[in-house]
């Protein structure tokens, strides 16, 4: 008996044994019938039929022998017993590859999805629910929930103040800040990315320096810059750079608009903030620039395009999907550091709003989020038609 070892679970072996035994019994019954017929025909001396039946009998006997062999094999120790994991693995291997991919896709996403449900979805739902309730602190902790519809939102815009400023004022100033910063940051980071993407002497060092803002701790830096020493040094620096003031005066005198000069000066003042906010954006744009296939530039060159034309006709369309991404990232990031956060911070001191009026707190954060979303949708609609997808 030379048969391959097969992998089976115990239950399956038993099933097979039963099946084969049933088959064997059936065959044996048939054999009995044939035996009777054979004896009958041979007594009648009908030799032709007895010979055919004899043949059938022979076949049956061999079949029964096979069954017996199978049974013997199944009961022997040559059969390797298989545990549940091996069985799953075995079944999995027999699946078509596309189905395997789907199963692994679900397996890979499950951890994220669990986290999403536990930490994100439930919390967001709770925030929405809280914002629709007047929450009165109970004695001994906890809150009484009193459903009052959009009353919190109405109060938010009519009553709530923080150190003299209303929510509406803070919100508008935050939005204006973002609308100014957004184009500046994106244009600046594209510009720097293009600059860093060219090869010049010392470009490795310059790149290393330009990515340092990514690792800056902004609270620490702000402490330094606005602390007593920072202002001292800053004043000293300004005295050293009087040339910029002179330049501004010169521009005013030759009749360039007051607004433009002010904008330029404020941009220069904010340059530090802009550089520090555009670290990630520069990274994203450099990655996008690197992925532009070189043959596009080559064919543009053959057609006689100048570098300026290449920038507008090749580079900008190719990085335009990334502009959309950075837009979203910049909005989310800069809203996180805007003034509205003063209403929302839950720091070690703990604002009164977070502890006493969770309803109001939730309402503010929902409004904050919606404004966020509104700006993103606005930017998205604005850019959507201009975005070019290469593939």
């Amino acid at each position, binding site marked *: 008996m030379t048969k391959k070892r097969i992998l089976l679970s115990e239950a399956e072996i038993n099933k097979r044994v039963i099946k084969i035994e049933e088959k064997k019994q059936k065959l044996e019954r048939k054999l009995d019938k044939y035996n009777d017929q054979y004896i009958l025909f041979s007594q009648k001396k009908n030799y032709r039929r007895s010979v055919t039946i004899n043949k059938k009998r022979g076949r049956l006997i061999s079949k029964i022998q096979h069954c017996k062999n199978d049974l013997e094999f199944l009961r022997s120790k040559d059969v390797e017993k298989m545990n549940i994991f091996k069985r799953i693995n075995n079944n999995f291997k027999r699946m078509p590859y596309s189905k395997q991919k789907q199963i*692994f896709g679900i397996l890979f*996403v499950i*951890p994220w999805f*669990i986290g999403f449900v536990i*930490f994100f979805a439930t919390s967001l739902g709770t925030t929405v629910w809280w914002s629709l309730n007047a929450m009165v602190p109970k004695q001994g902790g906890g809150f009484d929930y009193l459903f009052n519809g959009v009353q919190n939102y109405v109060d938010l815009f009519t009553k709530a103040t923080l150190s003299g400023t209303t929510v509406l004022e803070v919100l508008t100033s935050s939005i204006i800040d973002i609308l100014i910063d957004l184009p500046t940051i994106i244009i600046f980071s594209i510009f720097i990315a293009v600059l860093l993407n060219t090869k010049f002497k010392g470009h490795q060092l310059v790149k290393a320096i330009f*990515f340092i803002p990514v690792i800056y701790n902004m609270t620490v830096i702000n402490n*330094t810059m606005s602390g007593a020493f920072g202002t001292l040094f800053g004043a000293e620096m300004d005295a050293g750079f009087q040339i910029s003031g002179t330049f501004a005066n010169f521009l005013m005198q030759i009749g360039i608009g007051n607004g433009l000069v002010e904008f330029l000066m404020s941009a220069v003042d904010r340059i530090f903030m802009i550089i520090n906010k555009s670290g990630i954006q520069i990274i994203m744009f450099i*990655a996008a620039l690197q992925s532009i296939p070189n043959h596009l530039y080559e064919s543009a060159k053959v057609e006689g395009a100048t570098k300026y034309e290449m920038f507008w006709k090749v580079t900008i369309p190719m990085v335009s999907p990334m502009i959309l991404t950075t837009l979203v990232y910049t909005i989310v990031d800069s809203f996180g550091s805007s003034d509205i956060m003063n209403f929302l*911070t839950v720091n070690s001191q703990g604002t009164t709003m977070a502890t006493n009026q*969770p309803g109001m707190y939730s309402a503010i954060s929902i409004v904050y989020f919606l404004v966020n979303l509104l700006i993103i949708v606005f930017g998205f609609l604005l850019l959507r038609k201009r975005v070019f997808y290469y593939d």
Partner: protein
Amino acid sequence: MIKTLKIGFSKLKRVINQFQEDMKSPTKKMIFRNKVVGIISNILKYVLVVGLCFVILYPLILQLAIAFRSPTDVNNTSILWIPGEFSIKNFEVAVIALKYFDALKNTLILSVGVTMLQLVSTSLAGYAFARLKFRGSGILFGLALFTIVVPQTVISLPLLRNLTDMKLVGKPITLFLMAGLGMGIKSGIFIYLFRQFYRGIPVELEEAASIDGANPFTVFWRIMLPNAKGAIITVALLAFVWQWNDYYFTTLFVSRSNLDFVTLTTQQVSVLYGLQQALTDAGVWGLMGQDVTKNPLFTSMILNTSGIMVMLPLLVLYFFVQKMFVQGIERSGIVG
């Protein structure tokens, strides 16, 4: 003397003549013009780059200048950038006020662990969203993008309450859990980056491996991950840095209810409260007099020094990995 001048003059004349001759042919003129434009734009580029580099490095230089200033020179106006005498007294005070080594250990453990877990969870999810499509994976990816858009402050209060119900607040394991389940700091962005990256790897590679009998996990482990070095380094550095600099999450979920668990950032904020004790321990009282903490310059100096001590390990780390990081970004092939 006159002879050499004459020779020089004739040479110059020859050069000028040659130049005028050259200018007559349009191609040479073109080449010359390109050269001049190239040189001028190069000079402009260098001026710009050096200026911007200075703007970036300015706070660091400022911090170093302040940190090495001796406490006795606080009110000395004749000293500005270069300290009169180099002293590490500030560092001694800051180490005690920050509980530096304890905080450093905690921060390191947190950052390394969170980075690892975020890498695992986000790269798996990113790969699934890029290549292992199943019914509803598009919607789930939309939800993952949605988590980027929702600011953390919106969900932080109910989340804090939920975690308190689960008895998870005050233990660093909360942060690990959130990172491992893909809900750490800005995990959505990492998922997005990984997805974009994996989409850029040719499908043929995957098909070849699957024909050779690899299952999807083997394809991911043996083919996709080794190719994803650039994306992994980028994500790892960002995750590490963001966790290191994070104050909001760490305070909210751990340090606020567990005062023994200090990290560098949480200590940095409360360094002013610990200043008095630190001053006595460092023996600076004698130099300064009792009301030294009321001197805003002095507190500013200590705040600075503690700030630089918070950033110092990161800067050292960055110094070692920056080459890998820059190259990783360039080869990452992340496409919007």
